[in-house]
């Protein structure tokens, strides 16, 4: 098959030598990308036994999607994978922003980084030129300054993925940061362990479109009929003239009277009906969804990733941040603000300690200045500091852990008196953001006991009490990935989350939360998942067979989106906003678009098979690195989750069994040799055999 959108080339860089070579994508896969390609690469390249994620043998992969850079809305995603310091098994995160498209325009489907440099370096990729540059002058700098310094050197347009001090110092939750809040939690330390400060990309090449006329027509239909707001929302947050329905939690929250309040001309979002393609980018103000309408006053503009019509990131102007020495301008990704909220108490939340009797009048006259910051200002400051120091927010878990540790007294108990006393707690009590700067500086340094907070085991190490195990604070799944759901959609969603964090469940969650009626959602499930039996969404009672189909569909579609490089906040598109479409998007939409770009037809089944291959490769890698041939033991759902959502153990076990079946795995969730051969990853079978032999010998 002639494939226009895949370059057929992978750049392989060995930092130890150092050396770079170009290998063929076909050595790993015929037609793949994103997470599927990344896991296929790790299957071949990642040594089965590593000391830990910071071992020099760890392999970092950046894999663009097979449609990344093609101009399809949201086609900017790149998968970043390596052995994770957080979980101890290989992981893969989707990063949006400009890195993925630049990688493709530079002429590569992926970059593989092995070995470690003897001294700090950054990799400078300019089309077919690859250079290792000294990063000695950047070591210790934040990600913002690093990006600016590199762009000043190589060009304003370079896309830079950098680590901050946290990554350099191998904090477990360190992130890789690129413009637009695109981060990959946990993998910053992997770059740091390789002495790799940043990867800079510039590309001037093209992604060819085989059938340009057909593609233009399909894009027109997509924009006018199918394209939802981020989060899969297809109805407005408030009643509007064009819609029969509305849902308060919708991402489609543009409304008359709602303005980008800090823009020079005060842009009004107004009604943005489907079909009005000149207003698609005004549909969403994620900051208003998370912080209320008052937050719109700080919005300079919505910001979108390359080729996306929905600006779900926001550029804010918050002059109060200057009081803490931070920039008043903050670019915040769609989830960054939500994940960063609640780091500091509000003024008055923590009572003033009683004054000691011997205090003189003069001393009592010295008052710490109180700065009353709004929730939004605190969140923006925390998001900015986390990005600059390269600290991952763990989907909001870091803030929860920190506040719980401080407010419950666990932190005081866990730290030596000198270290605890070295914090200025008066700043904390009075809500001064200078305290927050100190917190991130210490996390970035990773040289004190306080930095335990930057591991996934903080709750266990500091012995958080039982009261921590609630929906408001505790991590949800066994793999310690925090989830953002207010409430799960039953055992099916819990099972998906247990197998692989929140990625696999996202297509299902977004569909169930799209804002349409239960009947409409059922019709969509029927059309997209092939569920022949009725699925009663309301009351969360799913008919078993249909539930299995829905779960399998969700997991595979999440991997299809990744392999094509499509943003998971928009894709798969299952519900549609246009009334005339019957609210059901064309189930073959993704495959049709891929066919137009690639020049030969491809079926949804072919894409799903490659998705299944990626999922299965990930599972094998999980087993190999956890040295566990019964991976069902890794898929446990926390007791409090079951209690919170009234799930029985039996329901979760049954849902997991159905999920394994949908993936073609055996009863304990292990892929067997026959399946691995069918999927063309026989190498995975050899890895499992080696593990079996080792277990038998043991």
């Amino acid at each position, binding site marked *: 098959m002639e494939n226009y959108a895949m370059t057929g080339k992978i750049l392989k860089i060995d930092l130890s030598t150092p050396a770079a070579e170009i290998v063929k994508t076909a050595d790993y896969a015929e037609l793949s990308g994103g997470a599927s390609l990344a896991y296929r690469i790790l299957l071949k390249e990642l040594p089965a036994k590593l000391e830990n994620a910071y071992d020099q043998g760890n392999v970092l992969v950046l894999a663009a999607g097979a449609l990344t850079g093609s101009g399809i809305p949201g086609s900017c995603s790149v998968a970043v994978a390596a052995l994770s310091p957080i979980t101890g098994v290989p992981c893969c995160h989707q990063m949006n922003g400009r890195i993925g498209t630049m990688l493709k325009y530079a002429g590569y489907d992926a970059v593989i980084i092995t070995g470690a440099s003897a001294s700090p370096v950054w990799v400078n990729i300019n089309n077919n030129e690859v250079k290792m540059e000294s990063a000695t002058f950047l070591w210790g700098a934040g990600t913002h300054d690093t990006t600016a310094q590199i762009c000043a050197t190589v060009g304003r347009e370079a896309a830079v993925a950098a680590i901050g001090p946290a990554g350099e110092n191998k904090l477990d939750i360190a992130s890789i940061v690129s413009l637009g809040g695109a981060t990959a939690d946990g993998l910053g330390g992997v770059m740091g362990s390789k002495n790799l400060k940043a990867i800079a990309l510039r590309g001037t090449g093209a992604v*060819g479109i085989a059938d340009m006329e057909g593609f233009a027509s399909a894009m027109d239909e997509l924009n006018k009929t199918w394209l939802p707001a981020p989060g899969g929302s297809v109805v407005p947050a408030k009643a509007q003239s064009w819609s029969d329905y509305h849902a308060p939690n919708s991402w489609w929250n543009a409304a008359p009277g709602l303005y980008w309040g800090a823009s020079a001309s005060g*842009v009004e979002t107004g009604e943005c009906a489907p079909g009005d393609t*000149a207003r698609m980018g005004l549909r969403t103000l994620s900051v208003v969804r998370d912080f209320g309408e008052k937050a719109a006053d700080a919005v300079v503009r919505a910001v979108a*990733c390359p*080729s996306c019509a929905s600006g779900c990131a926001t*550029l804010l102007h918050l002059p109060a941040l200057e009081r803490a020495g931070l920039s008043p301008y903050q*670019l915040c990704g769609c989830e960054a603000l939500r994940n960063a909220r609640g780091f500091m108490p509000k003024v008055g939340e923590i009572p003033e300690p009683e004054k000691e009797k011997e205090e003189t009048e003069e001393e009592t006259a010295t008052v710490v200045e109180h700065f009353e910051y709004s929730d939004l200002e605190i969140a923006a400051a925390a998001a900015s500091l986390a990005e600059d120091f390269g600290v991952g927010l763990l989907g909001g878990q870091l803030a929860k852990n920190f506040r719980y540790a401080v407010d419950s007294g666990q932190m005081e108990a866990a730290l030596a008196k000198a270290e605890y006393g070295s914090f200025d707690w008066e700043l904390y009590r009075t809500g001064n953001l200078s305290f927050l700067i100190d917190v991130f500086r210490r996390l970035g340094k990773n040289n004190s006991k306080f930095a335990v907070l930057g591991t996934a085991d903080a709750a266990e190490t500091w012995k958080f009490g039982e009261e921590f195990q609630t929906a408001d604070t505790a991590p949800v799944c066994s793999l310690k990935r925090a989830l953002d759901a207010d409430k799960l959609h039953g055992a099916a969603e819990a099972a998906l989350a247990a197998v692989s964090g929140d990625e696999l469940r996202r297509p299902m969650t977004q569909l169930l939360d799209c804002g349409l009626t239960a009947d409409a959602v059922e019709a969509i499930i029927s059309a997209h998942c092939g569920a022949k039996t009725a699925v009663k969404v309301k009351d969360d009672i799913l008919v078993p067979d249909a539930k299995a189909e829905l779960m399998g569909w969700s997991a595979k579609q999440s991997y299809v989106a990744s392999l094509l490089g499509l943003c998971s906040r928009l894709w798969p598109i299952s519900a549609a906003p246009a009334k005339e479409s019957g609210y059901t998007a064309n189930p073959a939409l993704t495959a049709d678009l891929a066919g137009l770009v690639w020049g030969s037809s491809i079926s949804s089944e072919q894409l799903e098979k490659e998705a299944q291959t990626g999922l299965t490769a990930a599972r094998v890698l999980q087993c190999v690195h956890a040295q566990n041939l019964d991976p069902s033991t890794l898929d446990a759902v926390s007791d409090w989750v079951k209690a919170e959502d009234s799930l029985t153990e039996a329901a979760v076990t049954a849902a997991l069994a159905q999920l394994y079946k949908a993936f073609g795995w055996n009863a304990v969730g292990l892929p067997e040799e026959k399946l691995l051969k069918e999927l063309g990853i026989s190498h995975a079978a050899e890895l499992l055999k080696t593990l079996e032999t080792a277990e038998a010998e043991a």
Partner: protein
Amino acid sequence: MSEHLLDQLLEKETTRREFLKTAAKGTAALALGASFLSLMGCSKDPMQEKGNLTGLPLPQGMLMVNSDLCIGCGRCELACSMANAGAAQPAAAAIHSDRGLQFGQNGPKLNYRYGDGLMGNGRIEPAICRQCRAPLCANVCPQQAILPDKETGTRTVNAEKCDGCGTCISACPWQAITQHPETGVAVKCITCGSCIAACPTGALAITGWTDL
């Protein structure tokens, strides 16, 4: 007659001085109309004897951007390159959004946190051709490859004449002209409108020409 004049203007290989003379005639012709021009007689136009004349027929329209509405998605670049270069290739586009996205069109400075771009004060504005009255790109082109379109007056690159020297790129005060990464041919806006259709916030429009 004006048609004939424009044909001459656009197709005939001329020396620089001839080009300027003809351009002056063209300006006059468009301004005064064909009948009046025939009455006065082009060859006897006293203006042509003065030498230092510059000017081209004025364009009918120009691309404008409302930068307050720009969300930095780069769909304008993609649509432009698809329509005019046949592929999704922002580097071959005639509108330039992405390169100034992070630090503004002039790149990062020491105080980048307060400078233009998303790494700074959030000001983003695609660089676009203003269809200048006296375009420096055309004036400096040693091949006289940048000429007004017959129909619209839009300053257009004649790809066959352009030898990819890049002089026009340095000359353009708006940083609005670039070179195709593979062919080296100068690329500039021809007001085709493909970017407008792709913009998801209605930030772009073709308006009546104004001298900026």
